[in-house]
């Protein structure tokens, strides 16, 4: 993923060259300006996290002050736990699916409302509206809408599509995709807004020049819009992949990880193992694995996209 020749040598002081907009001064503030924030961060976040991590190597049940160090057993147990393996697979599947579908959808919406159609401002508000509602609320709404006698099935029945009626959340083959659909519905507008901001920063002259050069719609999108949207892509993909990997609220509210374990993600499993089964050590070990996955995915993706951004500009 990391392509060495294209990556600037890390310099803790100098700002990243790609991030500096032309014309802005390159004066960098002294590092100790960040000290108060870093101290606070260390005490509120880093220290407790590190103290939490040590429980991953114990058999603590979350209650009994007497617990034993068991080395890496929680981690080796994980490899033979079909529920954990399945949850890791679901997590990756959901993250990839959301990243692709939500951003594809968001980009199409952005291109749509970036035109000169009359209702574009109203549309923007409507499309963004779901993103401001708490995920747990939309999840409970959709849980009712997607029920066997819910609005979705009733609507399909009413327009004569009876054969399309499904047990959306109760069918193990379908439930995971229903969850993905709900999330895309809610956050597609969020991706749209970020793409829209990118689109509006593209100068009209470039399009005009491209049009004069004989570039059609598709060509203009590919050669002008796409490269200039690269920063928006970076942010959107990063946010959706991290959001996808951490996914908890929507899954828990929509299916509770069921039927069976058909939609369990690492986060729902962490919750169940810790708070239902009292296996804190094991569930913290799972959390450590989740952290590693998020860290690897986000840094890897960042370097990859940053390189693309540079290649595009």
């Amino acid at each position, binding site marked *: 993923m990391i392509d060495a020749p294209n990556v600037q040598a890390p310099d803790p002081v100098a700002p*990243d060259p790609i991030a500096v907009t032309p014309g802005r001064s390159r004066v960098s503030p002294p590092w100790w300006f960040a000290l108060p924030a870093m101290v606070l*961060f260390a005490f509120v*976040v880093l220290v407790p996290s590190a103290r939490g*991590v040590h429980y991953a190597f114990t058999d603590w049940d*979350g209650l*009994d002050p007497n617990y034993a160090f068991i080395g890496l057993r929680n981690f080796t147990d994980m490899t033979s736990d079909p529920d954990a393996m399945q949850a890791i697979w679901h997590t990756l599947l959901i993250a990839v699916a959301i990243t692709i579908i939500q951003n594809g959808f968001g980009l199409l919406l952005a291109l749509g409302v970036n035109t000169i159609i009359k209702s574009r401002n109203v549309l923007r508000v409507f499309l963004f509206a779901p993103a401001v509602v708490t995920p747990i609320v939309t999840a409970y709404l959709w849980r009712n809408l997607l029920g066997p006698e819910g609005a979705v099935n009733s609507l399909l029945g009413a327009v004569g599509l009876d054969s399309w009626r499904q047990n959306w959340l109760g069918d193990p083959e379908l439930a995971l995709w229903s969850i993905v659909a709900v999330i895309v519905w809610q956050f597609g507008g969020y991706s749209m807004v970020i793409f829209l901001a990118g689109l509006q920063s593209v100068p009209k002259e470039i399009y005009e020049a491209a049009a004069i050069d004989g570039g059609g719609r598709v060509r203009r999108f590919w050669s002008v819009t796409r490269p200039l949207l690269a920063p928006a892509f970076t942010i959107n993909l990063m946010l959706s992949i991290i959001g996808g990997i951490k996914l908890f609220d929507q899954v828990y509210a929509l299916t509770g990880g069921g*039927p*069976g374990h058909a939609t369990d993600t690492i986060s729902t499993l962490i919750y169940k193992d810790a708070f239902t089964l009292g296996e804190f050590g094991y569930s913290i070990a799972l*959390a450590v694995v989740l952290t590693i996955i998020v860290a690897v995915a*986000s840094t890897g993706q960042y370097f990859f996209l940053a390189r693309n951004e540079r290649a595009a500009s």
Partner: protein
Amino acid sequence: MNIRIPSAVLAALTAATVLTGCSGGPDAESGDSKVLTLASVDQGSIEDVVKAFEAANPGVKVNFTTGGADQYQQQIRTQLASGTAPDVMSVWPGNGNPGATYVLAKPGYLLDLSSQPWASKLPAGVKGVTQYDGKTYNAVFGLNGIGAIYNQEALSKAGLTAPTTWTELLAFCKAAAAKGTPAFALGNQDNWVTQIALYALVATTVYSADKDFDTKMQAGQATFANSEWRTAMAKYIEMEKTGCFQANGLGTSYEASQDLAATGKTLGIIQGNWVVALLKGKNPAGTFVLKALPATDDPAKFFIPGAAGAGYGVNAKAKNKELALKFISYIMSPEGMSVFNKKQGSLPALPNTGYTIDPSLAEVAKFINDGRTVPFMDQLWPNAKVQQTMLSGLQEIFSGQSTPDKVLAAMDTNYKAGA
């Protein structure tokens, strides 16, 4: 904008939020002899009990918090482990969940209540699950039963009567389905619901013939896979195949299943008595009656799952032990017990409280008086994993991802893993 640092921060933040969890803020106030701290899961009923207790003890103030079971268990365990737990807290009977009597009494977090006058008066079927190592730790005030709850109006509209044997039950299901109103609503999307109908069948198929089944399980002389549990599981599936439940039970939530039964879209629901109040909330004009679910053709040998609900324990390190015991005495008194049970739609745990039982629960009361009840099965299991395996296993069976034999074998494995 530099995105590099935020990405590292985001990753770290993610880790932090996942790893650190929550630590509930305790409201432990020490020193004041007139203040009692209390944490409860009895949302909707504890409020009235607290009000009545404060009225009966002028000058006393109860600081209480309430929460759903999951949230409460997480909170109370954190508080107990860090020495900030309230004086009185909800405790579940028996074993098998993170807030159960065994689990909390074993590390010494609960005060021994054996010398309280009510401790010796608890019925035999209840006493066991309030104790750990022969000592009483849990003030259980209410009893619950599981059975088939019928919507009487829907029943008479369909021209059917409640079945009294297994054979009648299957015929009843077929007749009900043929009329377009299936017999029972099933809300198996919420995984705890999956066990209810199974427990109703297990009570008769397993315990009617073998009251010592749990003792044998504990001694390693019996297994789920080679017991009448298999029969019960097979009957549950036969009920599903016969059309006893509405379509798509796995996509139906507990809430949605109540709607079906309350409005007569199904003729009833297999649930605990606690659902009666909820059904009446959705259909105030309805009449709902709980009957034993027939599991064999011999009604004289029917058992129902009848068990102690969550009760209250006293923190071994209570700041205000005297007041805590006073509160416990109050909830175990006829007045306290009546307030609780009336609100919760349950039955008082102690006999002779002068409490008039709701007519819909007459059959539960009869089974309790006849000693034909068994505790909810999980209350006697050695760990919480057996039940969780059963719950997700049942969802997997109903969605074709697993088989009864596999699920029972997995339950045996988890049972043998012990505490």
